[in-house]
């Protein structure tokens, strides 16, 4: 664990914050308007909250929480499908823990479990496969969510299921890919972002090259960032340094893990099992072409979408919900019409309120106290 401690050193943090304050002085326009950087990954958002990084940053740097929380971007209709699968007779429905509370149009998996559905939390798809082996008379479905980070483990599990001929196991694939939503955000005419902290975990698989278009075509810098608090600060320094130098590039802060070419073995396994869907709906962002993975023909026998009847009804995001604009940094959470009234962490309407790390949920909980927290933290004990 010493390895991790190095990336949590408060003295190094102070140095980085000083550098950020210097580099960001005057803001993006010299008149104090803050640089707006989006951290793409939910893991980054988690680190930022957990270590109180927002309170460390000067007012000239603002972090916008991006669409990279795989749990939050699953549209309500797919959650409804998952619940209907879970409620079919003889089914054991397995899911990652944080997917269990995400609301569909009428309830969540946790509530389905309370109504009697056999919903079990697993930590990896291989655990779901083990459950299938142990329960040969039941049909075990794995609710696969996540970016290119978790997709390889789903793929490996499917390869193993085929090898061992385990036919009572299937996968409900909701895997998504990182580049299309980035494009969608960048294509938005009202975009107000100066740069990106690129997704670290995803990049271990896909590498750094797929992001070249961000700097080349859209003229925004991107720094692939690690998940420890110093990684985040250092990545912000690197972004600001690019502005100071007049550069606009894709850089890699997380080079202890991420290689430019990614992980070719994992990519090959993905190609063996999955095929791109023509389009997929993202909660808050709408339909995005070629942004998700379905099982290919070879794995039809393990594809829950082909094996089971599901409602497959598209449930529109509520009209009043402005998650899309929040995600793009166009409006602040509190500017949304339903924020704090119809939409609260207990009764979330949009994706940004669903996970405790969503931009709106975080603002709801922490908004007023930002400044207070900052001033108290530096007061002597």
């Amino acid at each position, binding site marked *: 664990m010493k390895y991790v401690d190095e990336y949590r050193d408060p003295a190094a943090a102070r140095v980085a914050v000083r550098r950020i304050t210097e580099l960001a002085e005057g803001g993006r326009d010299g008149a104090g308007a803050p640089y707006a950087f989006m951290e793409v990954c939910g893991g980054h958002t988690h680190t930022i909250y957990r270590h109180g990084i927002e309170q460390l940053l000067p007012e000239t740097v603002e972090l916008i929480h991006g669409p990279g929380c795989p749990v939050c971007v699953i549209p309500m209709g797919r959650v409804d499908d998952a619940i209907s699968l879970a409620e079919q007779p003889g089914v054991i429905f397995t899911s990652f823990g944080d997917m269990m509370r995400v609301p569909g149009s009428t309830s969540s998996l*946790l509530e389905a479990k309370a109504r009697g559905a056999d919903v079990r939390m697993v930590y990896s798809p291989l655990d779901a496969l083990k459950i299938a082996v142990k329960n040969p008379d039941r049909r075990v479905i794995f609710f696969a969510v*996540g970016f290119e980070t978790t997709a390889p483990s789903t793929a490996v599990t499917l390869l193993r299921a085929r090898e061992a001929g385990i036919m009572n196991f299937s996968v409900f694939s909701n895997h998504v890919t990182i580049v299309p939503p980035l494009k969608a955000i960048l294509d938005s005419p009202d975009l107000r972002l100066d740069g990106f902290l690129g997704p670290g975990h995803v990049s271990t698989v896909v590498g750094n090259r797929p992001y070249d278009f961000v700097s080349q075509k859209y003229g925004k810098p991107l720094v692939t960032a690690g998940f420890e608090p110093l990684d985040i600060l250092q990545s912000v320094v690197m972004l600001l340094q690019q502005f100071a130098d007049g550069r606009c590039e894709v850089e890699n802060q997380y080079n202890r893990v991420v290689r430019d070419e990614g992980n070719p073995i994992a990519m090959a396994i993905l190609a063996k099992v999955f095929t791109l869907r023509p389009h997929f709906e993202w909660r808050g962002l709408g339909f995005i072409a070629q942004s998700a993975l379905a099982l290919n023909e070879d794995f039809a026998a393990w594809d829950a979408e082909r094996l089971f009847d599901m409602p497959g009804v598209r449930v529109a995001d509520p009209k009043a919900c402005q998650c899309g604009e929040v995600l793009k940094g166009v409006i602040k959470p509190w500017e949304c019409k339903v924020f704090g009234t119809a939409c609260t962490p207990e009764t979330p309407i949009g994706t940004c309120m669903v996970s405790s790390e969503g931009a709106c949920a975080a603002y709801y909980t922490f908004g007023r106290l930002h400044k207070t927290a900052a001033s108290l933290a530096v007061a002597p004990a």
Partner: protein
Amino acid sequence: MRTEEPPPTADGRQELVLERIETFRRRRPRLTDKVVTLAHGAGGKSSAALVDAVFLEAFRNEALESLGDGALLTLPSGEQLAFSTDSYVVRPRRFPGGSIGHLAVNGTVNDLAMCGARPTWLSAAFVIEEGFSVEELTAIVADMAEAAAAADVTIVTGDTKVVDTGAADGLYINTAGVGVVPAGRRLAADRVIPGDAVLVSGTLADHGVAVMLARGDLDLEADVESDSAALGELVEILLAVAPGTRWLRDPTRGGVGTVCNELAAAAEVAVVLSESALPIRRPVGGACDMLGIDPLYVANEGKFVAVVPAEQAQAALAAMKAHPLGADAAIIGRIAAEPERIVLLETSFGGSRIVDMLVGDPLPRIC
């Protein structure tokens, strides 16, 4: 709610939205669910909503409304009794460092001790599923006898029910306990004032992590034992050297984060914790990190959080550290006046964050 025109400035509008949220947050959470889910048992917001809407509504009385670990009752003679009950449904029933039997005794003993009482008598009721092994039952009951002897309490009454196969998860145990509160002793949130020190009697999250690992569905091995223990003796040691002790609570379900939130709300103060001061064993911290679970919300079964006047804190710490159950005790924070009803954590990294009430069970994250 006022319906006047929003102020023209953005800051003014933001202020209005924040004010509205603030008012809402001050209310106790409301029960909106139609069925009971596991979240209602997790000790967070949902639990509070269920207790308020269903139990408090029906039973309302002064002793209950304090919602402490136990009820404080005054006898005609003027003596004070503490009375508490708890049910135990842990799976697996045996885990490194203890069993459901140890928990059933220690849990209730600790609830009494947190009221400042000297735990004395316990009841024990068993709901047993048909087919349950007598050998296992005997072993669990032996654990209870052992724990009762260690805590110096007597199990004086009991009950047994057997239900059909499938109607219970093997074995459920309920215990209730009674203890006498020595004259002049009063531990309560309303005594807590800004400047007080916050102590914890030992390392965090051992029990919760031990049980999670013992369930075996985590291909993860670490040398972690439950901290299940009776705290009566340690509480007496603390109160002897720090007679000004204001408030005690055992951070079981929901962990230290939840009890600090309850304290902040009840005493209308801020609880400011220091992350670097939190005693957490390496394997426990590592397992939590890996699972994406915050150790502040993980259950403990042999620890308490104490609020002590600042000038008695060092003596309290030294005395606790001298006892085996308090060897890892630490001063983990302080009480501040502002921001009211909030738990703040100064992170080791130099930032700060708010430790909110959990909405449901802590669920492992995937990203």
